[in-house]
């Protein structure tokens, strides 16, 4: 085999760069346009019910001055944070427990990945049918004589604590994070663990000092992606979230379809607020990673 010419390598590199730039533009354009339009809408310059009064910060001050908005935002952060943490810890457990090549490990991994293709809407409906006060668990409890009717079943859907929604989102996001975890251990973990064991480290110590840090660093970007997705997702929330506090995505849609045209512009401010949450999550991730790199010198 002859080596590729220098020109060929350069052309191939240029081709890759061009493809990369194209992909970035395609990915970013709708988001940038959306942010720009939302900003115009929030300033009263575009969208329904603008009234043609020129740019104004009134919508910002009015919407951000509402306690319901901040309660909804905090509630959304609680649900997104809790489900991301539970899914990440669960996924790490799956990755460690079923990382081998034997049939038991393969079966364990396959079962854990099962929810992966299930749409979020279907996960929400499933949670409603299983966890609702008239759902499957409630009916089993009724036939066993534990409860006398739906009202006796603890309310875990449409509940202020968001338990049902957290369970549904954890169930849905865990397989994705487990997939990431398993591939991290396969590609990066084994060699480091072997080295640690060669240097006399016991199984517990290897897990704590080598396996977990490798997993944690590798899974963090995926966990941040899950957090931002969950914080902005509407499908499961509309089925499982309570009416008070109203989750940020639900509040945004409610305002966007308000009977009164004058309220619809509020949705642009709320959309920007949702975007800010995602930006903050990514910034925290960068900060944590930079700190870790600083400590390890990598």
């Amino acid at each position, binding site marked *: 085999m002859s080596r590729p010419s220098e020109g060929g390598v350069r052309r191939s590199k240029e081709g890759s760069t061009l493809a990369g730039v194209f992909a970035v533009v395609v990915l970013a354009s709708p988001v940038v346009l959306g942010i720009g339009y939302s900003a115009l809408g929030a300033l009263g310059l*575009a*969208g*329904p019910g603008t009234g043609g009064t020129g740019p104004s910060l009134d919508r910002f001050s009015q919407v951000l001055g*509402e*306690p*319901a908005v901040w309660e909804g935002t905090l509630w959304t952060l609680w649900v997104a944070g809790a489900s991301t943490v539970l899914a990440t810890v669960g996924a790490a457990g799956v990755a460690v427990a079923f990382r081998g090549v034997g049939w038991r490990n393969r079966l364990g991994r396959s079962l854990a990945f099962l929810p992966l293709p299930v749409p979020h809407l279907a996960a929400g409906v499933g949670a*409603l049918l299983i966890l*609702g*006060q*008239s759902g499957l668990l409630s009916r089993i409890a009724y036939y066993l004589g534990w409860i006398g*009717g*739906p*009202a006796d079943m603890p*309310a875990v859907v*449409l*509940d*202020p604590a968001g338990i049902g929604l957290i369970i549904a989102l954890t169930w849905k996001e865990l397989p994705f994070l487990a997939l990431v975890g398993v591939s991290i251990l396969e590609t990066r973990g084994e060699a480091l663990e072997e080295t640690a064991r060669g240097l006399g480290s016991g199984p517990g110590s290897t897990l704590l000092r080598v396996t977990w840090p490798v997993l944690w660093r590798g899974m963090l970007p995926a966990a941040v992606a899950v957090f931002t997705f969950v914080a902005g997702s509407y499908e499961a929330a*509309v089925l499982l979230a*309570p*009416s*008070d*506090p*109203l989750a940020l995505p*639900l509040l945004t849609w409610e305002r*966007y*379809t*308000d*009977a*009164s*045209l004058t*309220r*619809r512009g509020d949705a642009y401010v709320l959309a920007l607020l949702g975007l800010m949450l995602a930006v903050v999550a990514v910034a925290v991730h960068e900060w944590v990673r930079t700190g870790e790199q600083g400590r390890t010198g990598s």
Partner: protein
Amino acid sequence: MGLLNTRSRGKGSALRVGVARIFFALAAASLCAWGCERDPVRETLNAPELALLPWDSVVALARGTELTWRMWRGDPAINAYVDGWVAKTLKERYDVRLLAVEGRGPELVNQFVVEREARAKGGADLVWINGETFHNLMAEELLQGPWAGTLPSAALLDSASAIVMTDFEQDLQGFESPWGRVQFALIYDTIRTPNPPRTVEELGNWIKAHPGRFTHDQSFTGVTFLKVLMYALGGGVDRFEGGFHQEAYDHGSEAVLAWLRAHSGWFWREGREYPSDVAELHRLFANNEVDFSMSNNESEAVTKSRQGVLPSTARPLLLKNGTIANAHYVGIPFNAPNPAGAMVLANLLLSPEAQLEKERPDVWGDGTVLDIGALPPGWKTQFEALGADSRALPKDSLTRYALPEVAPEYHERLSEAWRRTVRRPGG
């Protein structure tokens, strides 16, 4: 874009359309009788201009076209009627292909605003609307008109009915064509609640005697229930008629909120949570979590129990204080690419056979907007035979307890007040 007519231009400006244009359109229409693929005239004449042409010319311009109808697609029975009988008849008789696409009122208003900002060609030829959506579309000048009064089937309308001929007290102005008529009803189960409450007062007593077994949803149907309460507790519908009056609203809304404060502690989840929409309320009712559901369509108890969504023992219930009846309509957006096709469809929807098919309990159960008494005898007999389902409400009861809608501002304000003070106490 200059040819597109909106409310601000009205019929007077439509009349100013040049004779040459009309002549050209007629010539093109007759040419199209021999078949043509794409017709520039069809794409430039808007609905008010088409309304000046003989109906046969409108039909000729529509022939061979495709039509997009944006509508709520949340009910399989309605979808089956539209995708089945309507689409098939439209194709067979007029060679117009119908595409029915999801699009609820508020979303349509937002989309048309954005399309206008982008100067984009419209994606909808006909829209299913009423009430506050019509109010918003007219306020933003996003509908074409007038055209609806010139449809041949419009002569059959129940023109004496204020419920059909005004939409939330708004004059239709020929900008929307009536399509169906419904009336709000509670839904109960004859097994679970053999003696249901018949008045607002009895309902209040029932709620306190059965804690956790009643609620309403947060969306349109729930707000209609609040308006039923407002009429009953605020001195009758007369106080709220004739446009929006702040004083009447203050009095009425305070009466509703006081009633809710006195009773919501006995609601499902003690009134701290509410189902998001009426589909969720139906689910709670069907699964025995609550004993009442509700609907803007008095026939829904029967049609949904036939679909298996509600128990077979579910029945509609009218409160003797009166319940709100309203009509729903179709309109043509300002940038509709095929207004001729839209007018042909609107006319078909108003025809006695389409109205009869729609009203059958095993199809949709949606009330007619036609004056049945004025129809030819054959049609009249068929319409009257429809009330025979023993589970449906008798027509005379519906008429006796029907109350009209009031100005859309009542709906908007009451919805906002409920969200601020009841859904989120202290908000």
